[in-house]
């Protein structure tokens, strides 16, 4: 009995100390001087642009990684091909690699003297612009959909797909009518995790963006720049926006979760 309560309070205390208190403090400091200053801090053009940029990158990176993730998961589970094991391992790389390293590697690839630096000469600007930031974001958020979908695909097996095939369904029909409905919750879950990661990405984007105010500054970068210039209200208010987006994502995840899975 005591052990049960100790465990419960231990877990809650740990969570409160590490998560709730710090995040709560951010909320508190944001609205310390009332709602008005906070509102003004997040509705100035620089902040709005940062928010817009963050959402824009998410709007490209999330669908790209969803499409890629589902395709790769099917390839990994349903097909045998040379290099399959290697790909399976490499998919996890973004989870293991520090985002700063990802940013630096892109910098080396596209920057001055990099293999693909020639692109800049053709008027294609990758670094310090939206393409580079999007690439970096896609890189760091790559594994989530794949990792959610792979175990579910394994579990459902091939019986249903083969049954559909013998009933006359073409491969794409089978995918749309049988496979996709079976993996839909895993895809949703993966999309939500990807979104959360994309919205919050700092390290990799920080390196490749050049952090040009009002141009290549996403919301997390904006928080950092405000903080560095002692604009605490602006930093906290933008943090609150980020926290609210994260909260909405997590709630979305709970809502999307199938009832039977609890």
């Amino acid at each position, binding site marked *: 009995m005591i052990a049960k309560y100790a465990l419960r309070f231990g877990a809650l205390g740990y969570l409160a100390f590490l998560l709730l208190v710090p995040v709560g403090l951010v909320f508190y400091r944001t609205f310390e001087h009332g709602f008005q200053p906070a509102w003004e801090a997040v509705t100035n053009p620089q902040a709005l642009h940062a928010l817009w940029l963050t959402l824009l990158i998410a709007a490209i990176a999330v669908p790209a990684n969803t499409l890629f993730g589902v395709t790769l998961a099917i390839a990994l589970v349903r097909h045998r091909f040379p290099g399959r094991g290697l790909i399976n391992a490499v998919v996890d790389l973004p989870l293991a690699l520090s985002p700063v390293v990802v940013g630096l590697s892109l910098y080396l690839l596209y920057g001055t003297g990099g293999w693909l630096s020639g692109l800049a000469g053709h008027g294609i600007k990758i670094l310090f612009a939206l393409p580079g930031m999007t690439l970096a974001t896609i890189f760091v958020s790559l594994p989530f959909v794949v990792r959610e979908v792979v175990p579910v695909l394994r579990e459902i097996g091939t019986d249903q797909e083969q049954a559909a095939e013998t*009933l006359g369904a073409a491969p794409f029909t089978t995918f749309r009518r049988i496979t996709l409905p079976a993996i839909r919750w895993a895809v949703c879950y993966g999309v939500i995790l990807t979104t959360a990661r994309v919205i919050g990405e700092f390290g990799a984007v920080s390196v490749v963006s050049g952090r040009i105010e009002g141009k290549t500054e996403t919301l997390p970068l904006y928080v950092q720049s405000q903080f560095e210039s002692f604009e605490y209200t602006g930093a906290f208010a933008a943090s609150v926006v980020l926290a609210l987006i994260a909260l909405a994502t997590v709630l979305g995840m709970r809502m999307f979760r199938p009832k039977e899975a609890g």
Partner: protein
Amino acid sequence: MGITVVDVAKKFGDFVALENVSVAIPEGSLTALLGPSGSGKSTLLRVIAGLEDPDRGQVLLGDEDVTHRPARARGVGMVFQHYAAFKHMTVWENVAFGLKVRKRGKDEIQKRVSELLELVQLDGLAKRYPAQLSGGQRQRMALARALAVDPEVLLLDEPFGALDARVRKELRAWLRRLHDEVHVTTIIVTHDQEEAMEVAGQIVVVNHGRVEQVGTPRDLYESPANEFVMSFIGPVNRIDDTFVRPRDIHVSLEHDGDSTEAMVERVVHLGFEVRAELVRDDGQHLLAQLTQEEAQELELERGLIVYVRPSRQTVFTP
């Protein structure tokens, strides 16, 4: 439509699943592919269905070579051991799937699905999901789904393997009656010789990727082609090079000419049938099958000394 398999071979890595298999399935028949697990019987079925590409050989449906035709264009109905129910669809939607894929009219689908659900006795459960059905009901649904598209051949891969003994028996009898009604050429894969003999008109015995024998249940029992078929198709006693069925062991209380002394080790009563485990004085163990009446007359019990003689025996010349 008849099915002809010519010289089909299939390997999985180093494992030889099928080795030059040729077999002819007559139109309208109910044929069992019988063999132990790993014998290649399921692979053969999947090659016929188009779910597996053979390394060599041909598959003909009727007169048409369909070896390189994808499963979806072969006009086969397939039922899987673990039902392969579409979990996110209701019973009705499951059965309608093949018709919808074929873009049949709404009224036609409605009519056909209702007919089939009645045929498999699931008419009251159309709105249920597979998770809300018993194993037997799921497999009947899978059968209706396979039959919905009017397949030329019906392929059943261990269809009753995941069900409990009583349901399995019921479904066997039901499948037999269903086949009498719809007459579609049917192949059932099973490792259960009793199931094969009960359901099928023709049995193809498969072992180590080869066809051992093809025949009616009676042919196989009465004149097995080899040792494997003899011992797979029913219990058998092996005495040196000769094989004797347990019911061909004659048991008596009196010694006559060529009979041998044996002691009863164990008596198993299975209703009408009684099985006696015997050990001959030379140490040879024997299984004898008697009727209840015979056993009563002999007052068969553990420790009793009897005299045994094979009344019919088989020797296979290699």
